[in-house]
């Protein structure tokens, strides 16, 4: 077995209760590395085009990569994939940090494949190579923090135990519920929590002390030191850098001043009170500490505390930039303490904050336009700028209570139900993140083409277009954006299959990643080969989406963003030009109408 792998995959059949170890296919590891790539390949090998999200054979796969758990900076991450997302109808996919990924590896496995549906609620325990399914009807209904505490206390080695679980939202099959680990870390997008809930699997507990040897320890350590030096010297990722000091919320003011901070369900792109919910204000008013994932020198996590007031919540974590936008400007809400409370609730209930916020913002617009009648709200004052109703909407969604049953549809089905589909700001049914694409052309192209739907982190063109990294691109221009979007999408596929944190890409590049992976695995890798591997993974994911029936008709932005110019603010008058870029994107990809050609699939070794 190559270095960096345990060589074992745990297969769990919840129909029969059978657990078995399977060997990791070495050729598969060479072609797809681990994490996202490995998960996708395992899904592809059992692919069924008529799969439904809550079918027993919708595979749910937790996958580490060769870097996971190694002494390489930010190697505390893992990836989760499912055959079909209940939110988007695509392959489902999410990435998370914390310590669960390395702890799965230390428990003896590279990945866990879950199939079937249990008759009663269970949790899966994996301790030092020994796996068992434990009946857990008493855990069903518990919130994320409560079940995490309960299962950690049951373990024999508290400090070496990590819990990934769902909250009530996942149990209630909310299509944008996430899988939470270590209480505050989330594989948030595409509704992986609902798939886990459909299987009656409440949690996966991992613990162990089995370290995995890299192929060349000396070389790996040299490369880790070199990369660590780059990360520490970088003004963004270093110990006094922007990410550590202010967290991701440092972006609030930057995007707002660029006229790209989505406001009131993307009806506007400038929020006058943005500074009151910025990273700078978070540090000043509510920050109590900072925390990082396993093996991370960046430490971007926030520890926060709201000691009193209507939104008080003690000793919590977050919020991230995306969450602040989703419940803040997008809902027309200023109060940062309410956003911290909303974030805490989503962590407890197991909800994706971006989609939850985007769905509430959609509902607020539907109410404002008279599409949702007052009698549907049962007294709830669901309007832009009202933090109390926003918070109420969150728990109502998780429990499908009252109007929450409609909110739990997600914005696409909600807006269709009330006769105003234009109010859903989503791609492939997944609500858009915190960058208005009208004045940032590349990110719009990424939103339209990202395989899992309206996504920012699978091709983060914000880096060159807004932050000037690794070089400045004019955000208003379409020039060269298809090439950049493809480059960043394929790079990210490789990063999510390694698995390390995307934030390292502010300091590291393909040579550092490929050098590290070559030392860990012993594979013949260089920058070009790693990028090709990333391209293979992006194409495999696209192929499966095509087999589900998706094509260029789904690679589109909401009309608001391509037809309605931004009404005011620094980017007044801008619209997204995705329709002008998409054919060039397909051409460079070797795709026709959103589908990889047979020649491209053969070139990449997929078929």
């Amino acid at each position: 077995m190559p270095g960096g792998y345990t060589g074992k995959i745990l297969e769990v059949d919840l129909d029969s209760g059978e657990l078995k170890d399977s060997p990791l296919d070495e050729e598969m590891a060479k072609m797809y590395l681990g994490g996202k790539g490995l998960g996708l390949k395992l899904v592809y090998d059992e692919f069924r085009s008529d799969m439904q999200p809550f079918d027993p054979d919708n595979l749910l796969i937790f996958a580490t990569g060769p870097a996971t758990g190694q002494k390489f900076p930010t190697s505390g991450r893992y990836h989760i994939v499912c055959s079909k997302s209940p939110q988007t109808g695509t392959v489902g996919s999410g990435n998370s940090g914390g310590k669960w990924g390395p702890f799965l590896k230390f428990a003896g496995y590279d990945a866990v494949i879950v199939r079937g549906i249990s008759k009663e609620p269970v949790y899966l325990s994996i301790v030092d190579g020994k796996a068992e399914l434990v009946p857990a009807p008493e855990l069903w209904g518990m919130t994320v923090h409560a079940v995490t505490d309960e299962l950690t206390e049951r373990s024999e080695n508290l400090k070496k135990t990590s819990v990934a679980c769902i909250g009530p939202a996942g149990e209630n099959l909310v299509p944008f519920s996430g899988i939470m680990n270590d209480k505050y870390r989330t594989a948030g997008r595409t509704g992986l929590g609902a798939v886990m809930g459909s299987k009656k699997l409440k949690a996966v507990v991992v613990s162990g002390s089995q370290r995995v040897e890299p192929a060349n320890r000396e070389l790996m350590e040299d490369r880790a030191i070199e990369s660590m030096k780059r990360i520490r010297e970088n003004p963004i990722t270093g110990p006094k850098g922007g990410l550590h000091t202010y967290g991701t919320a440092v972006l609030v003011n930057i995007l707002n001043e660029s006229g790209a901070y989505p406001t009131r369900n993307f009806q506007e792109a400038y929020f006058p009170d943005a500074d009151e919910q910025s990273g700078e204000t978070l540090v000043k008013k509510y920050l109590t500490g900072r925390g990082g994932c396993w093996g991370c020198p960046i430490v971007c996590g926030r520890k926060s505390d709201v000691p009193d007031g209507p939104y008080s919540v003690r000793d919590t974590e977050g919020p991230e930039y995306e969450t602040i936008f989703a419940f803040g400007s997008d809902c027309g809400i200023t109060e940062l303490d309410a956003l911290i409370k909303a974030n805490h609730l989503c962590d407890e209930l197991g909800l994706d904050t971006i989609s939850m916020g985007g769905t509430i913002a959609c509902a607020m617009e539907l109410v404002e336009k008279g599409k949702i009648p007052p009698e549907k709200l049962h007294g709830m004052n669901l309007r832009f700028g009202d933090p109390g109703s926003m918070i109420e909407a969150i728990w109502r969604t998780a429990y499908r209570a009252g109007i929450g049953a409609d909110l739990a549809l997600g914005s696409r089905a909600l807006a269709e139900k009330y006769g105003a589909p234009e109010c859903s700001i989503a791609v492939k049914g997944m609500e858009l993140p915190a960058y208005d694409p009208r004045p940032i052309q590349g990110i719009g192209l990424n939103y339209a083409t990202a395989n899992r739907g309206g996504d920012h982190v699978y091709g983060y063109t914000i880096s060159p277009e807004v932050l000037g990294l690794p070089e400045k691109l004019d955000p208003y221009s379409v020039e060269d954006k298809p090439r950049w979007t493809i480059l960043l999408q394929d790079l990210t596929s490789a990063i999510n299959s390694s698995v390390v944190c995307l934030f390292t890409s502010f300091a590291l590049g393909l040579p550092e990643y490929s050098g590290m992976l070559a030392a860990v695995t012993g594979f013949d890798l260089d920058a070009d080969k790693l990028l090709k591997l990333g391209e293979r993974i992006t194409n495999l994911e696209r192929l499966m989406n095509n087999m589900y029936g998706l094509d260029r008709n789904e690679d589109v932005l909401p009309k608001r963003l391509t037809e309605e110019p931004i009404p005011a603010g620094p980017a007044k008058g801008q619209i997204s030009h995705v329709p002008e870029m998409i054919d060039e994107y397909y051409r460079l990809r070797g795709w026709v109408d959103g589908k990889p050609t047979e020649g491209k699939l053969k070139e990449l070794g997929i078929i």
Partner: protein
Amino acid sequence: MKVHIKFLATIREITGEPEIELEIHSGDTVEAVMRTLEHRYGIELKEATTGTTAGGIPKIRILVNGRDMEFLSGLETELKAGDVMVLIPPVAGG
């Protein structure tokens, strides 16, 4: 005439205030305003806004009315009444 200057992240820590209004003359450029700010906030601001970091990243990015000055006329960009200039140190998120 007056322009608005906003300070983000670590630049705000140096200035001690999130934003100011500044009286400038007709024809003043971004560069002229930067000299005025260096005079007002001292050597610490000058050091924080000049040159590049160890990794070759420019220490400062400047927006004028939402546009990076590099896509306007750089330091020679002329300001007019009511313009908003934003000083951003190297930061990122996601």
